[in-house]
């Protein structure tokens, strides 16, 4: 599950989650709302991250909702679509 650890570090860096460490993010914890507290701009930044690091193009933020649920769902999505 290297991808999961890598993702946690990338999210912390890209989203300026300065007070968090990878260990603070549970694999299945919700990223948005009650969980990590990410918001709509973070969702857009994750889309940028998917494009720049993994070459995956998400063209509609709406379809991101389930994909971005947790680090685990995000990793599954990347594994499936990575070019």
């Amino acid at each position: 599950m290297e991808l999961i650890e890598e993702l946690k570090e990338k999210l912390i860096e890209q989203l300026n989650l300065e007070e968090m460490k990878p260990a603070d993010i549970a694999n299945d914890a919700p990223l948005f709302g009650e969980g990590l507290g990410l918001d709509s701009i973070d969702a857009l930044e994750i889309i940028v991250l998917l494009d720049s690091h993994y070459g995956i193009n998400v063209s509609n933020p709406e379809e991101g909702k389930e994909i971005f649920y947790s680090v685990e769902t995000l990793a599954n999505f990347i594994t499936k679509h990575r070019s």
Partner: protein
Amino acid sequence: MTNFEITYQLSIDPNGIVRNGTPYDFKLNPDTYAWMAELYRHLKIEYPKFHKMDHLCKLAFLGVELLKESVDCTSFDKDRVALVFENSYASLDTDQKHQKNVQSQKTSPAVFVYTLPNILMGEIAIRNQWYGENLFVLNDEFDVEGWKQTATTLLKANKADVIIGGWAEVLDQHFDLRLHMIQRR
């Protein structure tokens, strides 16, 4: 015009922090912006959104947090706190970053959102749940009397009880905050 008076003043610039004429006990190294996170920790704030802000927002945000240390703002009517800020470079500090992103075809929405100067008032409003008036003005230099005249229009029109604002400028390594509060006498 004696009905309104400036009841609080704070400045943050490379020489340090001065609150109501008295130096505030915090040493800042103006060579980098690391002092902003240091001051955030020094003030024991727990507000992770802070780290997402650009330097201009952080500067104004920290100024208001310092104000809240010495003034009890909890009694203010949240609909009647107005924010009136001014500078000359607008959001050009972050505009430069966005422009570079655009030119390298790596546009970041989290950078773009800070390419408007009034976002700093949005950040302060969200942090404090202040629903009152917002006004962001651009002028080449800060003249406190001119700012006061602009700001007090809101008090005279009875749209606010308290004005918090002043000069908030960031461009590259230059930063300058002159925070003032005006209240009805």
